[in-house]
């Protein structure tokens, strides 16, 4: 089985936000929630870089470790998913997540945040694959259809890569060696415990 990862090649990202839009549309993400966002560092200065970030589907995911009701599970593809039926909206996964991925429909409303929502790697949730219930709670399940997450699939500069960790790391390494530079695999050290040696 593959070990699915995301990789954003910051030297290619043009901050077009198409991944953000694609995600919202494909998964019919509720109003106010963004499963993916683009963050620009050093905006307007030399060396500016933009990085598209969502849940990284961490190794030994901190969110899963701290959840008081243990509602997370990791699929055979190493995608970190959760059950909205079990979530009590306590916010702990948000404290633990290094990437600010978990989102709540009602942040700030008396601590009753509602069911947590986050990037599913376009892999749905615990309901049967392709079912209506699964789509309504978690959005699309492209992985079950043999497709990769839409954000990465439609990235116009192919900055955002999704797929087996080794494959996308290889693609990134080749890019860096061909063009002679690369600002690194953002978040990999934190999420997976090792970055890509280039």
């Amino acid at each position: 089985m593959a070990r699915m990862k995301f990789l954003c090649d910051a030297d290619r990202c043009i901050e077009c936000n198409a991944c953000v839009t694609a995600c919202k549309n494909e998964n019919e993400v509720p109003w106010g929630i963004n499963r993916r966002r683009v963050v620009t560092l050093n905006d307007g200065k030399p060396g500016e870089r933009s990085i598209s970030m969502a849940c990284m589907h961490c190794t030994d995911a901190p969110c899963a470790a701290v959840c008081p009701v243990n509602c997370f599970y990791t699929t055979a593809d190493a995608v970190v998913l959760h059950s909205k039926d079990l979530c009590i909206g306590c916010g702990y996964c948000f404290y633990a997540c290094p990437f600010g991925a978990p989102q709540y429909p009602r942040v700030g409303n008396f601590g009753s945040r509602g069911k947590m929502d986050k990037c599913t790697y376009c892999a749905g949730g615990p309901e049967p694959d392709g079912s209506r219930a699964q789509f309504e709670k978690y959005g699309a399940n492209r992985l079950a259809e043999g497709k990769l997450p839409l954000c990465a699939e439609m990235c116009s500069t192919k900055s955002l890569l999704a797929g087996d960790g080794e494959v996308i790391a290889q693609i990134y390494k080749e890019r860096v060696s061909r063009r002679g530079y690369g600002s690194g695999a953002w978040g990999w050290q934190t999420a997976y415990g090792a970055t890509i040696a280039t």
Partner: protein
Amino acid sequence: MARLFARIRTIAAAFGLLIMVIGPASSPLSAQVDPNASAVQEQQLLNQLKTIQGLGTIPDTKSYVLEHPAGRDWQYFHNVTLRWIAGIAILGFFALIVIFYLVRGSVKLESGFSGRKIVRFNWFERFVHWMTAVCFIILGISGLNITFGRPLLLPLIGPDQFTAWSEWAKYAHNYLSFPFTLGVILIALMWLAGNIPNRTDVEWLRQGGGIIGDKHPAADRFNAGQKAVYWVVVLGGAAVAVTGYMLMFPFYGTAIDTMQRAEMVHGVAAACFIAFMLGHIYIGTLGMQGAFEAMGEGTVDVNWAKEHHSLWLAKEMERESKPVRPVPAE
């Protein structure tokens, strides 16, 4: 002439094209241009700031934080350190109380009950005490559920039941925090006067409070042990209330790292609070004969007051025996 020009133009254009095609690949210049020279580097930013923040284009400004690896440290604290601290504090204190009970037994009323009663806590004081106490117990159980429910209770009752219970526990925890906080504030105000440490406490402590040993050191309305309970309730209550509200109102003047720290303080303070209150509950019920009545019915036996709060009893007696106004002879 015109043809010559046309030919030169063609040659020049072809040459130009040739340069354009092979130029970039063979030009030594392009290899020297490093568009990454001034680019931000992840590791460098993390070393400097511990969290990486930028700018975004969506309204949710907290999403502009790209990465904060401290989440992993918080995870370790919550899952390992806090469980050890809370477990040792609460179970350890509980074990001490059990051992103490087995060795010392209940503190008996030596002079027996006199049958005469004296008012110790009026209805308002008792109401505030029990309101705070009931809230405290529910808050304590629902709080412990967040830290220990997953390893202890979840395997017993299954995920669906556990979620149903935890969701109610969470609501109870959030909403009962308000009467609890009110209770702590009222306790702080109404009993402050009797709880300022003074010299009597030193002597009381030196004599083991009468609980270790059989002496009955003098005490005013509150002895040193009760003063300790007072200050634990006031300071511990303030600590859990402040940090708790920081967590209940996320991002109201807090960022993710402040909330992580608030949770740490909240957890440790609450665990110590619970451990200490076990001692209070023990002495108020099993540990001392005649003590429960004080908060139960509000009155205590005069002999009990004489043994445990002699100075207070003396003052009360004096106040009672003094007539409000001398009755003139007819």
